[in-house]
């Protein structure tokens, strides 16, 4: 059997696999779009394989690669059946992501084709578009992955705000905007990310905290040092992307992103000094996000004597404990942070409601009070006249209320708080539906 014949057989196998995937139900939108897109890809590959021209080695290798990737994609979809993830949160996340990830295409504006699945491990949290480079595909799919163990933990799901940054990066016009208006700011002259060399100098600074120096010293065993750190070991441009994505996370999810990031990243790297090939030290990122939150006035408390004030202050005080006080952890000045956020909001504001909506303390206070009473926090109350009154509440405020309620006098367990907030997001969708009736 020669390569071309084998690939023809494998094409037929993948086609059968696609049909078998229809055994399951895949979210409210169903499987039609996915099925049609995969069908188009298979048709293209089939036509290529059936071409009367001789296929050179390059063609066969490419066809094999495309079939391989398609097969993996189809197998992944079986993990996207309803029930594997929190669909109320996903429904809201999709509304947020759809506008900002819309791209220009052959036939007009293309909102992202999103499909969601659950994976194992905390590091399953991910949003990734298919690559933009030439592929045997018509439309690109955007995949959102949740850790299966954290299905109901909506207070942690705002960490996906970082991943929205990667999704934006994967859209051409948006990438161009981020390069011009945000990365250029982060790489500003005189800053610690002016160049690879400058960042490396700062990283290996003799004034760095002792534990940071020890973490870097461990790399000496791999013959990695200041001179070759970004050439041989880490990718400087990836570090910048991660920093950009952290700012996008804060800009889209607000304080809940800061809380989720602090909690989750610190769990994985409590000291915050481990350097990764693709990620800068966690401590740099946490310090940046907390400072950015301050500059956005997110941590500005309600005036005394607001009923929310004590819990609010306690929430932000707790976040401050994740901050490292040593100057080594602060890699951007305030002007850079403000200008970078401006650049991000310039993009987000073109596509409401993607930017984090301003907090109304009274409304937030009512949500927190509902949680304190063990009731899912939503836009509902009975008027003095005895009529039911419904109002719109952004799901990000529901989640923020969840975080603040953790600092009430008698907070519920983290598990229960998450369940109440998840339930609220679902109920709020019902309220919004009812209110949309003419």
């Amino acid at each position: 059997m020669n390569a071309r014949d084998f690939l023809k057989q494998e094409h037929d196998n993948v086609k059968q696999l696609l049909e078998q995937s229809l055994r399951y139900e895949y979210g409210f939108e169903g499987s039609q779009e996915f099925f049609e897109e995969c069908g188009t890809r298979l048709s293209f590959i089939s036509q290529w394989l059936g071409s009367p021209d001789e296929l050179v080695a390059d063609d066969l290798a490419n066809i094999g690669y495309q079939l391989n990737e398609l097969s993996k994609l189809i197998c992944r979809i079986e993990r996207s059946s309803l029930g594997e993830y929190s669909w109320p949160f996903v429904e809201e996340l999709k509304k947020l992501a759809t506008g900002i990830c819309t791209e220009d295409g052959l036939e007009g504006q293309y909102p992202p084709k999103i499909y969601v699945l659950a994976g194992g491990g905390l590091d399953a949290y991910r949003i990734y578009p298919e690559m933009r480079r030439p592929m045997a595909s018509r439309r690109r799919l955007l995949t959102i992955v949740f850790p299966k163990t954290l299905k109901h933990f909506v207070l942690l799901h705002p960490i996906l705000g970082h991943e929205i940054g990667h999704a934006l990066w994967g859209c051409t016009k948006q990438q161009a905007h981020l390069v011009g208006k945000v990365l250029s700011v982060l790489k500003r002259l005189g800053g610690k990310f002016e160049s690879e060399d400058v960042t490396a100098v700062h990283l290996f600074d003799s004034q760095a905290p002792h534990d940071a120096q020890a973490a870097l010293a461990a790399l000496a065993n791999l013959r990695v040092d200041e001179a070759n750190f970004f050439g041989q070991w880490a990718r400087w441009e990836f570090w910048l992307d991660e920093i950009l994505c952290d700012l996008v996370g804060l800009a889209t999810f607000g304080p809940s992103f800061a809380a989720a990031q602090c909690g989750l990243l610190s769990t994985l790297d409590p000291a915050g000094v481990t350097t990764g090939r693709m990620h800068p030290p966690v401590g740099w990122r946490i310090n940046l996000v907390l400072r950015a939150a301050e500059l956005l006035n997110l941590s500005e408390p309600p005036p005394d004597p607001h009923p929310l004030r004590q819990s609010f202050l306690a929430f932000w005080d707790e976040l401050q404990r994740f901050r490292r006080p040593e100057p080594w952890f602060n890699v951007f000045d305030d002007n850079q942070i403000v200008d970078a956020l401006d650049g991000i909001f310039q993009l987000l504001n073109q596509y409401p409601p993607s930017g984090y909506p301003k907090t109304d303390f009274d409304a937030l206070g009512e949500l927190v009070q509902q949680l304190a009473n063990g009731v899912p926090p939503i836009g509902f109350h009975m008027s003095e006249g005895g009529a039911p009154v419904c109002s719109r509440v952004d799901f990000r405020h529901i989640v923020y209320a969840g975080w603040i309620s953790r600092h009430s006098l008698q907070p519920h367990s983290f598990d229960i708080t998450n369940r109440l907030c998840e339930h609220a997001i679902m109920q709020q969708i019902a309220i919004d539906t009812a209110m949309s009736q003419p």
Partner: protein
Amino acid sequence: MTGALSRGSIIERLLSGDLVVSPILSEVQLGASSVDLRMGTVALMARAGSQSHVDPAAYLSGNAHQAAQTRQQKHERFEVPFGATFLLHPGSLVLVPTLEWVRLPKNLQGVVTARSSWAREGLNIATATLINPGYQGIITLELANFGEIPIRLCPGLRIAQLALYTLATSATFDATLAGQFDMSFSPRAGNIADEDEVFIKRTLRAGRS
């Protein structure tokens, strides 16, 4: 004074905060002496193929794997987001949650029945559901189709009604007296062996399982 709460009393209790029914999406849900409840977004159906008969002994905690497997495989769970529908076939029983979150004070008991308009289509609450004083959470409705043709259901439909009765004296709320389903977020099957193990084990000893 004991008895059923009228609309005015229900509203009064809602305003005071000791009774919670949230959300009430429209005033039409407030009847003369009841509150309409809407279907939520989950449907739980017993898997006919997974068991030959309902056996209380299967719920005994002796074999951890078997007990867990029974729990996981007994029902098929369908997520029914807003906009999706669920078809209830004749003779079928499905557990669905209410959309509303309910919390009863210690001096009120609730009774949930089907709305008559749905009952006339063949949809019924299989048993009149009693809601204990102090209960908080979604209410699980046991919907049965007694009609001849399938019924299409969707989240948000007003399918049940909750009537509230005052107790002569407030219930003494004790965690050990709490029903199995407090702070309930989702419908789930009960444990029919709960607190009755001594009788079930006797049948096993007698070889009558």
